[in-house]
């Protein structure tokens, strides 16, 4: 969908996925690494545990559909080369540096510095708090972003500290917002002929995860508390025999049929006491039901779920239209029959590493597979000759630039 668009991706780990989204949509994304490679981004864990930047699994996962070059923008020849590349680009994606959201400006090659000469370039900066404001210079990785963005405080058990997801969700939320901002700016460019700056705040993208809860809170200002495996007053996460399942013990028209179906299944298995068989779910509301009643219901459902495996429970949920789902681990995701039937996973070959690795291929499907992985993540400087060759630079010039620390 984006063929013909050239993106220079100077991002660190916080922006890898944003560049990948554009690449998987068909843009020509050129990943720019410092000479020697982005060693912080090419982080552990490594393929088969062997520490080597070319074997970083996070790198391989998040930089598909990109070509890769090395470019030292901190050296003067590197900066000059960056400006030459810029003349071929539609989009720049960058993430500043820790504590320095305007890192490229500090080198004289930031948005404002280049906007005159390269007015058509859309420039996207993903930074922890945005490019200006009282906390713009604060440093933050995933943990501090989710802490200051409001999600952390509401996640976890009431008797323990707030807790984060063990994978960096801050980058996951920011990536599509950055891609969307870039696409919007490209739309506007069709009208005006000019690019503009897309200023993405990691903190601000976190607030969307609260689904308007701060605004709702402003109405009543009641104290908020983490509720762990509960959602509000009733249990949402239940132990199964071999793991956990999600099942909402909540009422309302959209949920009543599933509660009825669950009790019917329990009755078939002789696991529903008489009072539960006769339960009036139409009148059940998780907002008004008493604590003792919640305890009685949770004991009955909980005992039933705890005796069955996640797979047994899910199979019956599918057959009976019960709103219950397994808390899948990686293996269960990759083996999921629905995802496999949709061909979500694609195997990429890494011959020099002696490996073939499965990746999720798309974030949405189209009949012509317009959204898919175009190529594996690049090795360090893999496309230097190709990309710089497109600028008219030959081997001798590249050698000179390498000697100067530019590539």
């Amino acid at each position: 969908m984006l063929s013909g668009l050239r993106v220079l991706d100077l991002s660190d780990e916080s922006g890898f996925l944003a560049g990948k989204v554009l690449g998987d949509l068909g843009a020509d994304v050129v990943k720019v690494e410092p000479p020697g490679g982005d060693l912080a981004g090419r982080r552990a864990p490594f393929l088969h545990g062997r520490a080597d930047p070319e074997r970083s699994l996070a790198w391989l996962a998040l930089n598909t559909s990109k070509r890769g070059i090395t470019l030292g923008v901190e050296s003067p020849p590197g900066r000059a080369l960056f400006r030459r590349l810029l003349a071929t680009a539609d989009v720049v994606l960058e993430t500043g540096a820790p504590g320095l959201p305007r890192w490229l400006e500090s080198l004289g090659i930031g948005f404002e510095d280049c906007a005159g000469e390269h007015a058509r370039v859309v420039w996207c900066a993903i930074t922890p708090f945005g490019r200006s404001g009282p906390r713009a210079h604060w440093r933050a990785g995933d943990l501090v972003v989710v802490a200051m963005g409001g999600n952390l405080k509401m996640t976890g058990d009431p008797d323990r500290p707030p807790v984060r997801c063990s994978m960096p969700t801050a980058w996951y939320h920011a990536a599509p917002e950055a891609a969307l901002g870039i696409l919007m700016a490209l739309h506007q460019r069709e009208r005006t002929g000019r690019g503009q700056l897309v200023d993405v705040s990691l903190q601000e993208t976190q607030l969307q995860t609260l689904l308007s809860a701060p605004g709702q809170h402003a109405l009543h200002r009641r104290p908020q508390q983490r509720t762990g495996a509960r959602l509000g007053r009733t249990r949402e996460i239940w132990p199964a025999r071999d793991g956990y399942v999600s099942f909402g013990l909540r009422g309302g028209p959209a949920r009543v049929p599933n509660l009825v179906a669950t009790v019917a299944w329990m009755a078939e298995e002789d696991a529903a006491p008489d009072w539960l068989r006769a339960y009036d779910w139409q009148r059940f509301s998780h907002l008004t039901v008493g604590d003792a009643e919640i305890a009685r219901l949770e004991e009955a459902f909980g005992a039933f779920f705890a005796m069955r495996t996640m797979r047994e429970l899910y199979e019956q949920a599918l057959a009976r239209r019960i709103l219950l789902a397994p808390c899948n681990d990686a293996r269960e995701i990759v083996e999921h029959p629905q995802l496999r039937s949709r061909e979500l996973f694609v195997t990429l070959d890494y011959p020099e590493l002696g490996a073939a690795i499965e990746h999720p291929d798309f974030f949405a499907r189209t009949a012509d597979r317009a959204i898919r992985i175009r190529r594996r993540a690049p090795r360090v400087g893999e496309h230097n000759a190709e990309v710089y060759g497109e600028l008219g630079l030959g081997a001798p010039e590249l050698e000179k630039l390498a000697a100067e620390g530019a590539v």
Partner: protein
Amino acid sequence: MGVFEGLKILELGSGAAGPVATRYFAEQGARVVRIESAKRPDFLRVLFLTPDSKLGLDGSPMYVLLNPDKESVALDMSRPEGVALAKRLVAWADVVAENFSPGVMAKWGLDADGIFALRPDAVVVSGCLFGQTGPQRSYPGFGGQGSAIAGFNHLTGWPDREAHGPYGTITDSLSPRYVAVALAAALLERRRTGRGRHVDLSQIESGVYSLAELVVRWSANGEGEVRRGNASEREAPHGVYPCRGPDAWIAISVRDDAAWRALVGVLPDWAREAALGSVAGRLAARDALDARMTDWTRPQDALALAERLQAAGVEAGPVQGFDALLADPQLAHRGHFVPIRHAQLGELPFERSGFRLSQSPGGFSRPGPNLGEHNQAVLGGILGLSAEEIEALVARGVVA
């Protein structure tokens, strides 16, 4: 002027994931018309509706907050006349965005082919839990199941306790962003080719796509990441530590030796221990480090300590609840919350997206609509029906 001034979006569906996707376009000036029904209202309109509630269908804060600057037309889609009006709106629209279960649109003759027959260059996006194809496509579900199936629950929480998803059912906030990306990309493509297209988005798949690193780690090494509380695999200290006051916490993370040295400059003398100078040493002493950090942070004020640590070059921040967010000076600087008055609820803080365009500020000015609030504007203004015709449709219960 908004980027999408003049763009016409027709939206059908309910809940959070669908409406949030089109909100990005409303923020940039698109005209977004929602087809709703009084008979089967959007469940967000009744989510917190208790029998004694006086607010009714138009006073649900979540609905109102997630649907600013949109228009609502009420049609009874169980009646052929209702469907006929919807089809005329499809012919008007550049974009049709729907998030029903698979098959619902087809029942009205409004599957992608039906839409293209009415509007050949439409961009159509269908977003649901599992996508439009496959053996489990009809499985009914909400975000809670999406988060569990996509793997987020398993990764969130304490190793000795239940898996629980990040607050707010993460697929409900991730997937609408990908719907919006797909729409914006398809519209850009349409400018070039003149052709529309149909995008089939599964909320679970866009979640798994986000977790690409997890899939790759499993496939490459046979290792599935687990939930590890706030610990990092690669560094320590990396945690959430108590501060002075009720439920007050600070998040502190060290990403390398340089960051550790910056932290040592602020910490008491125990931190100068030579063994803590390396990543391996800190990881080996993780529990003891966390205990000492906890003792050190507990009597301190979270914000003041965060400011001190940031000044020293350490990643740190107060764990902010809703009150802190509403008062956050950085979010205020960015104009994140936009106060808008709602007739029943009073003034509410509506929320902007996470990015700003330097030349296209965008924004919101109207709260989420009452059900059918724009019947006149849509049926009269867009379809050209006369006041009498609309009255007759209301009388027959078609517009309801």
